[in-house]
């Protein structure tokens, strides 16, 4: 069981589902934050942010206060998100060009950015743009800008790859997106703080802290839920 200085071990359940994980990330986004949700899995977080949260979503292709996905007659090919999906506009939205949009990001004005990852190191290095495969066509988009730009970077991923290898690692083996940029890592099995002091486990799901430590190559500190 958890104590004041130990992580909450949720052993009465299995790993988080994708939706549960998105809800868990959403819970840690402060009310009224300006937030960028990376393409792919992080976009699910939007579904778990209540309207009353006052969270304003930024999309790096040039918009603040993006609304939910567009449906039917709402679809407008000139109103899309960074994943090039049709979205909607909420009251109070603003449009701006790419240099202004990335100035906003790179200048540290976004409170939180939620990104997917191939690997995160215990020190907070992020690898999410390139598998390093010789035949891969490199494509970075806004990933490197987001990695250095937001005040807090949350990573959202499964803790283990399909082949069972951990994605929280001592050192990233894939090409880096950014160095020492990630603050928190949310996975289906556990949540972590990462940074100069290494990885702190704040919560586990369907696995004990001891079992988790045994499956990762990273020294883990047991910490209280943040």
């Amino acid at each position, binding site marked *: 069981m958890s104590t004041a200085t130990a992580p909450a071990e949720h052993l009465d359940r299995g790993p988080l589902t994708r939706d549960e994980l998105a809800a868990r990330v959403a819970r840690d986004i402060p009310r009224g934050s300006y937030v960028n949700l990376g393409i792919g899995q992080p976009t699910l977080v939007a579904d778990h942010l209540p309207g009353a949260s006052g969270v304003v979503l930024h999309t790096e292709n040039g918009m603040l206060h993006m609304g939910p996905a567009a449906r039917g007659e709402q679809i407008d090919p000139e109103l899309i998100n960074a994943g*090039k999906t049709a979205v909607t506009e909420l009251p109070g939205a603003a449009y701006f060009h*790419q*240099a202004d949009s990335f100035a906003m990001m790179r200048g540290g004005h976004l409170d939180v950015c939620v990104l997917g990852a191939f690997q995160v190191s215990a020190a907070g290095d992020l690898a999410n743009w390139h598998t390093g495969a010789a035949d891969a*066509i*490199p494509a*970075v988009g806004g990933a490197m800008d987001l*990695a250095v730009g937001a005040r807090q970077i949350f990573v959202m991923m499964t803790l283990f790859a399909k082949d069972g290898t951990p994605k929280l690692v001592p050192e990233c083996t894939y090409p880096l997106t950014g160095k020492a940029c990630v603050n928190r890592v949310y996975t289906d099995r556990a949540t972590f703080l990462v940074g100069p002091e290494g990885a702190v486990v704040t919560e586990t799901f369907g696995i004990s802290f001891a079992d988790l430590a045994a499956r990762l190559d990273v020294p883990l500190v047991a910490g209280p839920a943040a």
Partner: protein
Amino acid sequence: MTVRICDDVDAAVSGVEDGATVLIGGFGMAGMPVELVEALIRQGASGLTVVSNNAGNGDTGLAALLAAGRVRKMICSFPRQSDSWVFDRLYREGRIELEVVPQGTLAERLRAAGAGIGAFYATTGAGTLLAEGKETREIAGRAHVLEYPIKGDLALIGAHRADRMGNLVYRKTARNFGPVMATAATTVVAQVRDVVETGGLDPEAIVTPGIYVDRVVKVVPTP
């Protein structure tokens, strides 16, 4: 100098030389000046360096320019997309050069070209593959990469509406790269849905002042 309102897209892209650097607006298809790119294919210039966020979608617009073998090098942030098969094939066949630039650095390098900034230091990319061979410097405790401007000979952009002085407004997220590219090229060509009389746009809401625009052409959207 004074903008020219062109009668058709072919007149609007006349005079492009082989080997030119062409900035093409758009993020995916939003803001992509498809009809101008098609006119550029007919115009015939080859050996081009194209700067655009993506490397073409499907088989039209930029993808068609690539398929026609006119592009020597792509500078972009995100070539790989679900429908970028034309670029993917050329790249795997070694028939096109690729420079991948982080999206914010791409936008800022274009802005620098337009704003007379000789070079700038950015944290983006520091310590990654994309900073290899670039000068770096620690500023205020953070590693920075020195980045240089990207200037075009020609920019092709898609805007919403122009007046007869070449002032432009955009629509929603189709604004994207248009305004920065308009500042960064020797010759700037905008395709718009509508040309209104001078004075017909709100001076407080003009995004690209006419000083940046050389040629405007009205393209009626195909429904």
